[in-house]
């Protein structure tokens, strides 16, 4: 392999450092993915029932939006500051803010998506003999998938970017490489961490778009 010109510790990326630290980079990437899946997963586990409750008891929608909006506006670093004395420098401390930032996006998109199912479609479903839960699961939820997935995609991409900050409370992720770059004034880990974070976010976005495509065969080919 030919070496690149001007490649050393002071260049933007020093390939031999990257080669020597592949295991470390792989672990950081893996931990980043785990934190993303756990945070968005827990977010969904909370948001789905919350959205269903809110649609049944409409009066609760405004307070739920207000509360999740409040959680959304608290700076991550501030929330870490509040949580560290309680839950310590643990993964729990990292996950609580990450989950709380997904809730507003997820709840809103699930509710908006389900609300957008037209009355005609509901009527047709009833005419075909669907009732209650079957109608919800087999007619309303599938039609709401594009809106729900738009929410999951925004939540996932934002979470991937935000996870980098958890490095300051000692959690391993691509953010740890960025923090390493800061602490040692060394660009290579920083560039690796930053680029991989953005690439991971874009790949996750495309992956979710692919899942959505698989789940909505009727919508294919409608758009160019």
């Amino acid at each position, binding site marked *: 392999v030919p070496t690149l010109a001007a490649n050393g510790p002071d260049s933007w990326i020093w390939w031999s450092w990257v080669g020597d630290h592949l295991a470390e980079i792989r672990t950081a990437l893996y931990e980043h993915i785990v934190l993303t899946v756990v945070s968005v997963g827990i977010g969904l586990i909370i948001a789905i029932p919350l959205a269903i409750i809110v649609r049944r008891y409409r009066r609760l929608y*405004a307070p739920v*939006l*207000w509360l999740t*909006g*409040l959680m*959304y*506006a*608290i*700076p*991550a*670093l*501030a*929330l*870490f*500051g*509040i949580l*560290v*004395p309680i839950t310590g420098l643990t993964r729990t401390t990292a996950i609580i803010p990450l989950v709380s930032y997904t809730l*507003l*996006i997820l709840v*809103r*998109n699930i509710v*908006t*998506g389900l609300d*957008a199912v037209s009355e005609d479609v509901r009527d047709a479903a009833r005419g075909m003999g669907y009732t209650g839960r079957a109608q919800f699961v087999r007619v309303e939820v599938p039609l709401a998938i*594009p*809106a729900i997935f*738009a*929410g999951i*995609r*925004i939540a996932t*991409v*934002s979470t*991937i*970017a*935000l996870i*980098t*900050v958890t*490095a*300051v409370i000692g959690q391993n992720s691509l*953010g740890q490489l*960025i*923090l390493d*770059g*800061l602490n040692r*004034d060394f*660009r290579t880990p*920083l*560039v690796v*961490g*930053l680029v991989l*974070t*953005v690439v991971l*976010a*874009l790949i996750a*976005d495309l992956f979710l*778009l692919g899942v959505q495509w698989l789940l909505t065969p009727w919508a294919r080919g409608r758009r160019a």
Partner: protein
Amino acid sequence: MNFLGQVWDWFTSSKQWHGEFGIPHRLFEHVQLSAVSVLAALVLAIPIGVALGHVRRGGNAAVIVANLGRAIPSFGILVLMVTVLGIGAGPTFVALVLLAVPPMLTNAYVAVHGVDPDAVEAARAAGMTPRQVLWKVEIPLATGLMFAGIRTGAVYVVATATLAALAGGGGLGDVIVNQASYGTAGVIAGALFVTVLAFLVEGVFALIQRLVTPKALRYDEDVTEVLLGPPVIEST
């Protein structure tokens, strides 16, 4: 709870209210850095967004900017800029401007692009030049929605300016990060302070937005539109 008592004691101790390490000075740094960043983002984002909306082109570019804006971690940009500019407020400034541009640009684009085509058509029929259409019809009608983007950007900036502390840029984040000098009670007090400040900015900007929105276009938006922009059904 005894702990709340400690936080209260911290807040009321006069030591926290004086000098370079006191809350007022940190608050001043925080607000100053946020204000400069929001202004710079405005100057960058609004003309481009308005221009793209006016010529009704670049919708895809606006969506790409919005998506990329979400994917790029502010923390990474901050550290990247530290290696270029060194320790200080500069790196945070760059990271904050990059954070605020996407919501401002996309909203300005959507706002101008979404102006009722009939109104634009009528203005043209009345003999207005393209420049007059822009300044007398499109921009006034788009102000409310455009300002919603400015508000989203401003709230992001105030919240994220907390990161400045990691790059030696001061601000209220310094109180949170610097447990050694401020103590646990100080960390919590600092965190509460930043949160309250973010809500305050949100409230003030909400008020301004209401004032700059033409009366006929005012509506009761829900809180989420402020934080996330208009509801997203499908984005590609």
